[in-house]
């Protein structure tokens, strides 16, 4: 993998993330985010995180963002909603972003200890599966399934209430 690929993918990701927050149509924002996530998956491949890249494309882009687009299209939320031009919103945004930038500028200017170890099979599905499914981080796997179960129960609760209310009126 050559290094310039990282910069190309990084530029695409940043440009399309800017498009998400600046464009007026919510559907266009969602599609721009899809492109940005694909670029980030490319970055993961350059950084040798191949399993995570495929999970990013399959789960993050292919399930979560598709769910976003599905809900947007279902509810017909195509109306243009431009970003707020209120001065207060921009001021709060800039105020929130400033400590981040200053802190990062201070922190990133000193040299980083770069181990640069080239571990064999780093980032491959075998390595990740070995860690998650009963390895060192097995409890993380179980916790993730519990979180997803809680989300499912929550969504079903929200939908069931809606149905019974409609039947009542």
């Amino acid at each position, binding site marked *: 993998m050559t*290094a310039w690929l*990282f910069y190309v993918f*990084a530029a695409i990701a*940043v440009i399309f*993330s*800017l498009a*998400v*927050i600046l464009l007026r149509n*919510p559907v266009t*924002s969602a599609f721009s*985010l899809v492109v*940005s996530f694909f670029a*980030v998956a490319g*970055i993961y491949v350059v*950084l040798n*995180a191949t399993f*995570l890249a495929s*999970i*990013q494309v399959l*789960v*993050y882009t292919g*399930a979560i*963002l598709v*769910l*976003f687009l599905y*809900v947007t299209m279902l509810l017909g*939320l195509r109306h243009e*909603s431009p*970003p707020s031009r209120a001065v207060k919103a*921009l001021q*709060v*945004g*800039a105020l*929130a*972003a400033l400590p*981040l930038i200053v802190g*990062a500028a201070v922190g990133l200017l000193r040299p*980083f200890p*770069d181990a*640069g*170890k080239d*571990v064999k099979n*780093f*980032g491959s599905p075998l*390595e*990740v599966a070995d*860690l998650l499914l009963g390895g060192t*981080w097995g409890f*993380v796997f179980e*916790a*993730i399934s519990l*979180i*997803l179960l809680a*989300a*499912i129960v*929550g*969504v079903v609760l*929200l*939908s069931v209430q*809606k149905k019974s209310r409609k039947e009542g009126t």
Partner: protein
Amino acid sequence: MIVPVTEVIGLSLILFTIGLVGLFIRRDAITVFLCVEIMLNAANVAFVGFSRASGDMFGHVAALTVIAVAAAEAAVGLALVIRLHDGRESIHLEDLRELKG
């Protein structure tokens, strides 16, 4: 490492700032959720970058966890948006002034 860690973390910072500013300036619920997803993604990039630099696989596991949590949060958040949309026609956050629903 192919790219210095500093630049990967710099990218993560830029993406996170973009998501954060977008969170404040966008006015409808769907785009606000999209900005939250941008921020989570930026955190993932930082995890992967540090994981590659240190040779420790925990960054990958943490990024997987973040993706799973983002999926759960997106599902519940979109269910809430659907409920919001039932009563009124718009999802502009400025129009949500009543607590009863």
